[in-house]
């Protein structure tokens, strides 16, 4: 006779990844490496902002970049060509996010002894990357002006997990109904501790403030 045996598990599917991520954070801390996970919707200006930022800090801080993309490697090539810092491509194999295991595999391809800061450009997406802890020491996201100031209300989790929100494309502010103060209020409703820095990766405005924030993060 067939009998059914039930084995109770009662465990979140994210639990294992969170364990991996915590372990990775400890390892990075011991090695003295900071891992910044940069997220945003597609096209908010992650790559453009990184190029500006890296060119400003690279003579004092040893930076490497990991570009996560579903398939292409245009961003990794662009970073290498415009900044000269080591930059590798991670393919997510069709997945909409990176997790701690994939991040670790990427880090294995970098010389961490020679690195102070690794920046991970996550897959362009405001939902999934927020749900999967990569093991990063800090999380940042970019919201660009054309996307609208109400995004913190629509994608609360993304704004909750980020230590830093960069508001990019401030140069196009005159053409959009984007209210920075209102946006800050929405962000702080979700996450009272978030730092908000407005920048234009096109004109370079605000990039120094961003560099300053990062230097502060690295020194502690």
């Amino acid at each position, binding site marked *: 006779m067939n009998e059914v045996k*039930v084995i*109770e*598990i009662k*465990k*979140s*599917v994210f639990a294992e990844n969170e364990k991996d991520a915590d372990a990775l954070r400890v390892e990075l801390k011991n090695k003295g490496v900071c891992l910044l996970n940069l997220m945003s919707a597609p096209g908010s200006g992650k790559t453009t902002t990184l190029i500006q930022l890296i060119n400003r800090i690279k003579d004092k801080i040893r930076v490497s970049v990991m570009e996560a993309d579903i398939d292409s490697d245009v961003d990794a090539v662009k970073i290498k060509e415009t900044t000269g810092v080591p930059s590798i491509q991670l393919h997510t194999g*069709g*997945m909409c996010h990176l997790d701690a295991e994939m991040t670790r595999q990427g880090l294995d391809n970098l010389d961490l002894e020679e690195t102070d800061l690794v920046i991970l450009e996550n897959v362009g997406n405001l939902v999934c990357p927020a749900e999967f802890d990569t093991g990063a020491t800090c999380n940042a996201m970019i919201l660009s002006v054309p996307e609208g100031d109400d995004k913190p*209300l629509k994608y609360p989790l993304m704004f909750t997990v980020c230590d830093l929100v960069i508001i990019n494309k401030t140069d196009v502010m005159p053409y959009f109904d984007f209210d920075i103060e209102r946006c800050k209020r929405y962000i702080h409703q979700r996450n009272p501790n978030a730092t908000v820095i407005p920048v234009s990766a096109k004109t370079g405005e605000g990039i120094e403030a961003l560099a300053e924030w990062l230097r502060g993060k690295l020194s502690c």
Partner: protein
Amino acid sequence: MHELGIVFYIIRDVKAVAAENHVEHVSTVVMDIGGVSTVVPHLLTDCWRWAADKEELLKGCELKCNIIPAVTWCDDCKQEYETVKHGKTCPHCHSGNTWLLRGNEVEIREIQVKELRC
């Protein structure tokens, strides 16, 4: 796309539990999926069918999704309400000082194994 990543996590966890319990084949995996967890159950079961059938342990194994309705708590009037219907704003007192109580779960509740007994 998201669902596929979650399916890989489920397979990894189920494999570990099966190995611990010396199980050779799993017939059903039961999930608790919150109503606002962003996981779409029918996409999850589609991805599951594709990925599970590649594993000896999980060939033909069914994935059952048990939906947990999302409920929000209002900290101002101390009442609960249905999240999906009213969102972040409390329908009783219109406060925005509200927190999700449940509905965000993506949990493996149990696995079922058919045993031959005489």
